[in-house]
């Protein structure tokens, strides 16, 4: 029951408002109007406008003109340089998401079921980096991964006698994966931990009692029950990695480029607005597709559950 239903039974207040103004729908509309208008003007319309812009072309004077065409998209997918950036972006995002989920399960399990003191420490350690600026976190990795004999990882590898000369770590896709994993791992762990904490331990106990091994219990009981958390984490980590800027810019530099760095270079660097808008639209599309897949998965599961057995 809501206020709306209580409203009819209550006596008119001192400053009686006109009846139409007191209708719940009208009040809700008035409460929503400022936020909705604000978002419509400063978010929805500009994004739609930008997508429209991606179908124009830039003339000699640097002015975007029609007629609308797919020229920018054809250029993006056909020029090898740009296609390679797209490939790097997808590969980095997939690898980061995969590593985050592999590391995420043990950590989330510790956070939910571990020793009580350890649980608190791990929660704080996993969460703390979320509150630290991404530029600082990435700068730390730049120092650690530095190429040449000054880099920490290179020093360690040479000290252990594993390599003779410093290897190239910075400005590679691997460096971006490491940095992205550091930045986005908490966003995989948190939904996983939330999903795992909702699983009734009795269900797992039942599987164990009936003779399933620990591994089999995890694989057949815990993992399927935690899929909503895994899906949420995957969606978050994949879309944020694929659309990130700071991490690829600092750790990938000009050599290992991703969509974020490419779009910045096209717009701020050489003022190629329509082409930049097209790259941005590709980014939006990737993120929307992965989000829709997530919504579809969750609704599919709910549909299956609600069906009578």
């Amino acid at each position, binding site marked *: 029951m809501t206020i709306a239903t209580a409203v009819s039974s209550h006596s008119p207040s001192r400053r009686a408002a006109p009846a139409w103004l007191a209708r719940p729908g009208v009040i809700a509309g008035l*409460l929503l109007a400022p936020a909705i208008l*604000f978002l419509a003007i400063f978010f929805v319309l500009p*994004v739609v406008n930008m997508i429209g812009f991606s179908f124009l072309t830039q003339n000699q004077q640097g002015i975007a003109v029609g007629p609308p065409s797919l020229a920018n998209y054809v250029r993006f997918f056909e020029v090898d340089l740009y296609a390679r950036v797209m490939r790097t972006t997808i590969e980095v995002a997939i690898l980061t998401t995969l590593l985050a989920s592999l*590391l995420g399960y043990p950590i989330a399990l510790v956070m939910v079921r571990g020793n009580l003191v350890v649980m608190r420490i791990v929660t704080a350690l996993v969460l703390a980096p979320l509150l630290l600026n991404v530029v600082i976190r990435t*700068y730390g990795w730049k120092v650690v991964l530095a190429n040449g004999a000054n880099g920490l990882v290179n020093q360690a590898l040479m000290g252990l006698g594993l390599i003779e000369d410093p290897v190239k770590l910075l400005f590679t896709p691997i460096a971006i994966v490491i940095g992205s994993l550091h930045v986005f791992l908490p966003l995989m762990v948190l939904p996983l931990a939330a999903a*795992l904490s909702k699983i009734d331990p009795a269900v797992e106990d039942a599987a164990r009692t009936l003779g399933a091994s620990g591994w089999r219990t995890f694989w057949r009981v815990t993992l399927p029950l935690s899929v909503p958390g895994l899906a949420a984490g995957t969606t978050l980590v994949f879309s944020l990695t694929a659309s990130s800027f700071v991490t690829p810019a600092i750790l990938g530099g000009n050599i290992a480029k991703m969509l974020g760095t490419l779009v910045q270079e096209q717009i701020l660097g050489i003022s190629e607005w329509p082409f930049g*808008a097209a790259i941005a639209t590709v980014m939006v599309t990737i993120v929307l597709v992965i989000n829709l897949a997530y919504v579809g998965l969750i609704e599919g599961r709910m549909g299956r559950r609600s069906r009578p057995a």
Partner: protein
Amino acid sequence: MNGRLAGLSAWVCYGVTGLTCIFIALPLAVLVAMSFSDTDYIVFPPQGFTVRWYAGVLQDPEFLHPLAYSAVLALGATIGALAFGTPAAFAVARYRFPGREVARSLLLSPLIVPVLVTGIAMLRLFTAMRSTDAGLQLLIAHIVITLPYVVRTVTVSLELADVSLEEAARTLGASRWRTFRRITVPQIAPGLAAGALFGFIISFDNYPISMWLADSRHMPLPITLYNFIARMFDPSLAAISTLMILLAAVLVIVMEKMMGLRKAIGI
């Protein structure tokens, strides 16, 4: 809660978690160590011990101005997001009306579009409007990106609040506004505080939207720090980093005291 970790799986989980914690702490620990190094460049292992880099950055207006600017911007964005977001969250959580789901999705929609892209779209809008007020542009942009976090946190706390108390107040003749102020607000105060804190952090740490809109007089801290990486080769930046790490640690403790970290993240 039973179902604790035990046996081999416990060892695997603790092992992976321990290694990951080292992975998380490593780049931060390296920066802290560097910040005390008595050398004019970043070198590992650090040599000597000095606090002169701290003395330097704490007097450097190039660091202090953006720091103050980011704090003011984040405060303004948070206030704006609360002003727009609280009534909207109230409408979505307390009223049933056609288009409610659409309104809810719209309020959260800035979370779906990459922040970088939102920034591009806003830069186009402001260019088309021939606006040159970078301060106002940044404020508007930061309200857009903090709004969904405020709406989400406040909506959740409104849904958890006891509606029957509000109905009782209304039945006893309190006006809508009085009910909201005296009954609803005290109940959702922790949610408002959490929303404000999230909003502040989101704005304070944002890079990809400020990147498009900042100019030399309106320079949020993350943009400044990014520029420092390219031109600061002594341990000053490590000292700044250490100060920021301290700030993050303080925030973790504040969140733990305020609402309990584990509760805040829903486990």
